[in-house]
């Protein structure tokens, strides 16, 4: 056979020594998985996990005592993360310890004295489902993933040039030196955010939690897809944050503002996450465009034009359902090479502190935080995409409209046009004169 595999370095070994399934093919010893599951070996890992996900904590604890294979399955962090985040009685009470399992147990049994030792390391247990997430957390980022830099970078662009060269042709660009005067660049760090969010919760992965708890989690977690602070209410919870930045001049037309803050769909988010957090491929809602400003840290972006489906992504014909089944790192491991060889090349680049990315409407995009990063983003409607947004809202598929209460979605089209007509009559006229707008 071929040369022996290089030994996996200690740092990346799974805590219970779970091996990837591929290793089984070269192994000489017993297969702990199949021998260890009894009749349950008929179920693939995926289904076994679905069953285990239905079990309460005590059952998982007992299951861990059954044998080596079940020890590995029961200790899978995904199970304990779900138990912690989904337990209504623990909301606001849990504090992140070093693992989700410890976090859950400490929160639900606060006075219990837990016996702690090094996790048991088993031999001969093979499972991609258990191994892969650990691998993704620890595998170093390949330099090839970060090298390509094909998104235009511009400094000192006039608003008119931006519209003509990027917004109207619907092309991405990284705008430099356009937010140099933001107080955010001086103020925003964990200490500051902790202060301004005191007494409030933030939304991470759509779960409410205290900011300092999120920070503790961020710094200690070994999650493959870390919880990502993505909070649309940051400005009402911490008005200082809204005062620390202002919308760059290129984007201040902001036509949805005619609906007022109560009537407009969600439009601005504070974003923060540890290294390897981020967003998998998606298109932004309601045919809007967006800008994303990195305040601290750095993000690797990969972008595909609207009509080109990125590798590894599945979308229904009407675009209503998008599935990107793999995590960010898994996408890089499995699909990055393919993305470099496809008929449509993605645009890529790293956005660093002080830089703003323009995300044109309809473009697929994914973002990977290369270090702990804080960013702010807004979606917007301008004359350039007005017709598209109007058409999208008119389309009549209420379930595709997002960012506002369900009852409002069907009426958003009419409400928007009527408010536009009242407040910006010259722009309202443009929406029916779109051809004149786009012609040379």
């Amino acid at each position, binding site marked *: 056979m071929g040369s022996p595999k290089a030994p996996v370095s200690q740092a990346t070994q799974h805590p219970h020594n779970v091996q990837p399934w591929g290793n089984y093919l070269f192994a000489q010893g017993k297969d702990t998985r199949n021998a260890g*599951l009894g009749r349950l070996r008929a*179920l693939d890992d995926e289904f076994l996990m679905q069953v285990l996900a239905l079990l309460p904590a*005590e*059952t998982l604890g007992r299951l861990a005592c059954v044998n080596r294979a079940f020890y590995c399955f029961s200790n899978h962090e995904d199970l304990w993360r779900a138990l912690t985040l989904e337990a209504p009685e623990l909301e606001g009470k849990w504090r992140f310890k070093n693992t989700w399992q410890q976090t859950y147990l400490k929160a639900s049994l606060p006075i219990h004295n837990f016996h702690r030792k090094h996790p048991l390391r088993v031999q001969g247990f093979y499972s991609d489902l258990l191994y892969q997430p650990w691998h993704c957390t620890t595998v170093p980022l390949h330099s090839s993933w970060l090298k390509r830099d094909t998104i235009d970078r511009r400094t000192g662009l006039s608003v008119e040039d931006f519209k003509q060269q990027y917004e109207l042709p619907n092309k991405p660009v990284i705008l430099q030196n356009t937010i140099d005067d933001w107080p955010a660049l001086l103020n925003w760090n964990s200490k500051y955010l902790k202060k301004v969010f005191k007494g409030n919760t933030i939304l991470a992965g759509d779960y409410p939690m205290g900011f300092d708890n999120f920070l503790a989690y961020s710094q200690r977690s070994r999650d493959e897809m870390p919880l990502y602070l993505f909070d649309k209410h940051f400005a009402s919870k911490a008005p200082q944050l809204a005062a620390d930045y202002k919308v760059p001049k290129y984007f201040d037309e902001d036509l949805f503002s005619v609906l007022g803050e109560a009537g407009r769909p969600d439009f601005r988010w504070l974003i923060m996450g540890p290294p390897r957090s981020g967003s998998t491929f998606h298109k932004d809602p309601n045919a809007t465009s967006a800008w994303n400003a990195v305040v601290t840290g750095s993000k690797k972006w990969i972008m595909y034009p609207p009509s080109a489906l990125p590798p590894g992504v599945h979308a229904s014909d009407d675009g209503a359902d998008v599935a990107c089944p793999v995590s960010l790192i898994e996408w890089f491991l499995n699909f990055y090479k393919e993305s470099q060889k496809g008929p449509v090349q993605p645009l890529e680049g790293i956005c660093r502190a002080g830089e703003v990315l323009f995300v044109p409407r309809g473009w697929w995009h994914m973002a990977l935080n290369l270090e702990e990063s804080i960013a702010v983003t807004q979606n917007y409607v301008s004359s350039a995409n007005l017709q598209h947004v109007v058409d999208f809202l008119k389309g009549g598929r209420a379930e595709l409209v997002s960012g506002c209460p369900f009852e409002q979605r069907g009426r958003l089209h009419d409400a928007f046009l009527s408010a536009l007509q009242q407040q910006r009559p010259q722009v309202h006229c443009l929406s029916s004169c779109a051809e004149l707008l786009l012609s040379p």
Partner: protein
Amino acid sequence: MADKVKLRSSDQQMFEVEEEVAFQSLTVKNMSEDTGLDAPIPLPNVSSKILAKVIEYCKYHVDAEKKADDKPSKTEEEIKTWDTDFVKVDQSTLFELILAANYLNIKSLLDLTCLTVANMIKGKTPEEIRKTFNIVNDFTPEEEEEVRKENQWAFE
């Protein structure tokens, strides 16, 4: 007269099923949209024994939802009872039903079967779990003691 769909199991048995019943499986529904209803739809991952059970499940649930006098024909209570009886099968059949429900993309059946297995594990001691599924204890005595200490909280 309702349209019928022809389904062919892995062991080449043919089942003719009403469209509404067959389309409880999103896999079958999608495949028939590609190939039409004339040709039989091959299901190489599902044996005739399991396919018959799946069809029984789908048929019951389609009938149970049918409305007469503006009320569904079966109450939630009745459906639950029927479901409970439906899954009273040997383990190997139950596991095959999970795999089939996944392959055929019938969410309610997948949920029901997974929950059934979960309930077979809940509340049991490690030894009882081993007995239920014929699992061998491969811990060394030292390992077993360590693991037991680590999880003592689950026994109190």
